[in-house]
């Protein structure tokens, strides 16, 4: 799998490259500033891009802007955005095109190498991965909202796992229940939120997040 990386700190850039290399990814280009991101993505059309939000020269949100621009130019291009902090605002912007292949994680998550690689793979496959912190903020804030209020604690838990991008099997494993129970919970969630059930993993999570984002 071919990867483009954008990260300005050499230490982290090399670390990311090493980790991805070790798991059989091929890092075709690693850029260090905002203006080089889009040309690199257009040139290589990678299977997945891993971008830092804050990049030189302005040290604002150039990486995120590049990601959004790239998704306009190359719809569906899988992009995993990394940052030292997560903002719901950014999550909403990344999800706005309602296509899959989007990830948004805190940089610390890279230290759990197995999970990080898993996230990169899921994004590359067109899935969606949101940082648990984004999800928990959303759930905490919307707990009082009318329709979410009807969910049981267990269903809310399942919703959180879904938003983080996990499959039914993975959710079942984490909550120590059967897959069948999970899909029952999910159907309940859909009916309580007034959404038609769907088998498509990615679309259902996007729908949930779109609902949560109001």
């Amino acid at each position: 799998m071919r990867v483009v990386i954008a990260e300005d700190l050499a230490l982290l850039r090399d670390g990311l490259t090493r980790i991805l290399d070790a798991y059989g990814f091929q890092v075709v280009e690693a850029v260090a500033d905002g203006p080089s991101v889009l040309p690199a993505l257009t040139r290589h059309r990678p299977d997945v891009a891993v971008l830092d939000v804050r990049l030189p020269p302005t040290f604002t949100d150039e990486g995120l802007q590049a990601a959004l621009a790239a998704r306009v130019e190359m719809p569906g291009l899988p992009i995993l955005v990394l940052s030292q902090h997560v903002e719901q605002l950014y999550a909403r912007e990344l999800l706005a095109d309602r296509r899959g292949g989007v990830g948004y994680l805190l940089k610390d998550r890279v230290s759990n190498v197995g999970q990080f690689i898993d996230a990169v793979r899921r994004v590359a496959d067109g899935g969606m991965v949101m940082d648990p912190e984004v999800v928990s903020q959303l759930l905490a804030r919307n707990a009082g909202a009318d329709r979410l209020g009807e969910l049981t604690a267990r269903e809310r838990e399942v919703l959180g796992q879904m938003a983080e991008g996990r499959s039914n099997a993975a959710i079942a494993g984490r909550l120590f229940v059967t897959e069948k129970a999970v899909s029952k919970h999910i159907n309940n969630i859909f009916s309580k939120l007034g959404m038609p059930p769907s088998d498509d993993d990615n679309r259902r999570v996007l729908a949930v997040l779109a609902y949560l984002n109001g």
Partner: protein
Amino acid sequence: MSAVDSSVRAVVWQLVRPGAVAAVQGLAVALLSLTTNVALFVLSVVSLALIPAFGIGFALFPAVTVLVRLSVGLQRRLSRWSRAPIASPYQPVPAGASLGTWKRFRWVVSDAATWRDFAWLIPGAITGGACLLAFVLPFYGLEGVLLVPILLYAITDWYGYGVFWPMDNYLEAWLSMPQGWLIFGGGLAVPPWLVWLHFRFAGFFLAPTQAQELALRVRHLAATRADTIDSQAAELRRIERDLHDGAQARLVALRMSIGLAEELLADDPARAARLLSEAQEASGRALVELRDLVRGIYPPVLAERGLDGAVQALALTVTPPVDVDVDLPGSPPAAVESAAYFAVAELLTNVAKHSGAGRAWVSLVHRDAVLRVVVGDDGRGGASFDVDSGLAGVRRRLAAFDGTMTVTSPPGGPTVVTMELPCALSSRRISPSSGTG
């Protein structure tokens, strides 16, 4: 017809209103100036004259000055009527200078404002007395309009009005009506000018001189600078403590775990692995603490998106739902942005905690070189912000930028907090800080 009637009435009222209001204002000014000014002038002269007499004046004059300042202060407040309000020029009373002390006397006589007030008393009584015309003229005009002079002439056979004094015949009596209209019209046009003139003239004596204005400004700056330095120092101290007890301590523990794991690697690999995974966890917690700390110092989203984006991002994280309305053609200076952001954050936290509101709104508008930030909610109102130290902190922080905060929160709501920060906008923000997101 009645619609036309009422619109005619509205137009007439529009024409008459400013004159009528000013006439009443003129009466108030005249009464105040004629009575108190003259009395206070006499008191001042007497108390000054008593200074050689056993020092009675030393105690008396400062006491009279208190009265003079009260009366003149009232004039300054009324000067709002003239659209050219007069500010107060006095220096604050020094410590230990209570009435009757020598220190108080020295402070009173050495303040130029004392003598300028004194010098104004008699001229002020004259211009103030002239304001009586503002009240009398329209009524005199009205007398003519309402044919009162004709009536009185008919009854008493001797009456005068306007230029005919006394009247000789009925023609002159009837001419009192057109005269009345003229006087009434003039009587409505003149009062605003009379009141304006009085206060304009008073301004020459009662407004702070340039030197006094500078002195007041310096005092204000010194106070806000001291506040700013204090709160900066307290902030640094808090950051130091957070780092020392938090991330720094965790890193020390981390190094110990890693060091121990290194020792155990050969002999007890299972325990070494456990230590390493503990170390991993500890490093995660250290990162969380650092992230929170960074957010409290300068929120990264503020650096990345400016005030506009940062407030939008903030609004997404609080309950109740917040409508954000931004009209900023550029970026305020970073320090102002930060102060405004933390103020909004504090106020929204208050809304979430205390208001019971179902909706809140934030608006950011820059106009006439002032950034106006309004935070409102439809909650239960009745908020008292005096005792709230968080709000006091916000106020202090804003004061460092000459910013102000006003709160309206009637029982039953809505609560609206308006903050105003004078500042210029720059076209495109470029953060000079380095680092990575």
